Structure formats: C-alpha cells, structure tokens
C-alpha cells in the first residue's frame, strides 16, 4: 500500500469523527436515555412484559398482529392481563392507560427517528396531544 501511514491515520480520524456521539457520551458518562411517562392511572402491568424490553422491541409487531386479527379475520377475542380483559385496540387499550401520547409514544419515536402513521387515522384521546 502506498502512503499506508496517511491512509491509516485518515481512516482513524474518519471513524473518530463519525463515532463522535458514541464516544462523547461514553466519555462524559451520560448515555442518552428516553424518559417515558408511567401510566397516569397507576397501571403497573402491560399486555406484554415491559421490564425485559419485550414490549419495547415487539409492540409494533403486536399491533400489526392485532390489526390483522381484528380487521381481516374478525377475531376480537380479549387480551387478558391479571384477570382484566382488554380489546385489541390501539386507541382503547394502549392509549387507555398511556393517555399522554406526547409523553409516551412520541418521546421514544422522536429519539429513534421513526414516524409511525398510526395517528393519521387513529384518534388520540382528549388532551393527549
């Protein structure tokens, strides 16, 4: 390789600059964490496990599954959490507890730079903008 030294140094600088957000956060000891609002109604259990990250990783797939079952197959069996029955519904069930969309859904979606189109049609409860 010609000019190996310059190239290696150049690559190192490139990696260093592009990885700035990572090492800067590590160096300062403050990693970026999204603070999600706990359900204002005091609910402690969700329709999927929350603590191990299942809900965070799977909620979009769960919603797709609910949608397909309800709209396409007409299967509207209830989701049971600790003996209480819930509809397979974004507006009624999810936003029923997490009433403040801006302090829950949006915080994470904004940080992750995703723009789900759910609310183009589904209605956010009063005061939950």
């Amino acid at each position, binding site marked *: 390789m010609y000019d190996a030294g310059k190239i290696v140094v150049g690559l190192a600088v490139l990696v260093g600059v592009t990885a700035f957000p990572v090492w800067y956060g590590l160096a300062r000891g403050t990693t970026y964490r999204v603070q999600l609002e706990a359900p204002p109604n005091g609910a402690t259990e969700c329709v999927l496990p929350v603590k191990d990250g299942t809900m965070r990783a799977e909620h979009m797939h769960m919603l797709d599954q609910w*949608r397909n079952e309800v709209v396409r197959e007409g299967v509207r069996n209830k989701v049971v959490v600790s003996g209480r029955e819930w509809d397979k519904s974004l507006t009624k069930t999810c936003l029923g507890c997490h009433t403040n969309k801006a302090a829950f859904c949006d915080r994470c979606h904004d940080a992750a730079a995703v723009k789900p189109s759910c609310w183009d*049609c589904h*209605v956010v409860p009063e005061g939950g903008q």
Partner: protein
Amino acid sequence: MQGGRRSFLKMAGGTALAAGALPGMTSCAQQAVAHGTGKRLAMVVDLQVCSQHGDCTECAKACHLAHNVPSFPKGEGALEPNVKYDEIKWIWKEDFEHAFPTEENHYLPARVTARQLPVLCNHCDNPPCVRVCPTKATFKRESDGIVMMDWHRCIGCRYCVVACPYGSRSFNWWNPRPYIAKINPQFPTRMKGVVEKCTFCEERIARNQKPACVEACPHGAMVFGDLNQEGSDVRMRLTSGFSIRRKPELGTQPEVYYLV
C-alpha cells in the same frame, strides 16, 4: 358422393370450435351466486314507511357521526374549485330514478318514485370492488358476507370506485380530519388518499349491536339480520312483501332489499 370428406371436415371443425368456445360464453353469462349456507347479513328497507318521511336523514346523520365521515365544504368555500365530487358518504338519500335507473315502467305510483330513498353499500355476494382491488384492502368476509375494508392497506388507486355500480365508495381527496364536525374517539378517521364506504357497522355487530342507521331510524323502516336464518327479521319481511334490489341485472347480487 362428391366433396363428402371436405364437408365432413368442415362440419367437424365447426363443431369442435363451438364446443371449445362454450365454456367461455357461459362464464360471461354468470350464474346467480348463491348465498351459501352460512351466515349472510342483509338489510331490508321498507320504502312504504321510509318514503312517508321525505326529509328525514337520521340514518345518514347517525352513520356519519359514528364513523367520523368528513364533510368537505362545497360551493364558494370548496377546497379546490375543479374538484366537484369530493363528497364522502356511507349512506345517503337518492332519487328513485337514480337508485333504480332500470325500473322504467310507466305510471309507477308517486309514493314510490317521487320520494328519495336511503342507499348504501350493497355488500354484494359477487362484489366487483373486491375483484379489482389490487391490495385486497377490500375483501369479502366469508363468515357473514360483509364487504369489508382494511384502510391500512388501501393505496388509493380508486379502481373500486370505478368498479362499484352503486357509487357506494368515496375517495378522500383531502385530509378529512379538519372537516369532521365531532370526532368519535372510538372509531378511526381516514387519511388523505384512502377510499371509504359502509362496512355494515361490523364494529357494532361484533358487540351484538345493530348497525347505527338501523338503530337511528325513528320509523323502523330498516331491518337488518341474517338472510340465511329461517325466521329472521329480514327473511320475514322479504317473504311478506315484494322487494326490489338495485341493478340486479349486473349480477352483483346486492344484499340490500327495498320493499315497495
């Protein structure tokens, strides 16, 4: 015999051609599609009752309120002067001659022809909208015959709008949200670029409720139920009076009946 073989071959060829073409011809003249044996939801509108109340639009009001149907401004305040047909409707009142353009008998009684009547999606047994939908956003529910819409899948191509011979489908040329007078939070709205229509209130049927229009009709002119269930309301009404359907000659097998 002169030319015997030649004429025989001509005859044989002609017969073979006709036999080959027969399936193609009969498939065009499609047989009436059976209701099947399972549940088959249908509606009966008693025009003898409905036509006595010419100004009543309670069915449409209740439906449009329940399903977040927008009302785009018309005339002066129209969103785009060149788009004249941006009205969204699930159920509305129509002139007799427009609802039943082939009922051409002379001297039909004015009590039938002079009044408007409610029209909606016919939830056909042989729905052309389902056949043309490229994404299966519109599909026929085998469990009860409802022609259902999955708005998540609609890409707004409007093939169904063209295919439907009843004008039952509306296209959202604009974002409907700002033009919904009062949003019902229990039901979604639609977005710009999506087609919508009556779903026979499948969300209410799932809760053992009647469709919103049937429930709202103050005169009891609308009856809803399972056509295949002996003794059901719709069956009783159909066997007790003479009914007509919209454009039955098209072979779509509409499932909204009008008692005349």
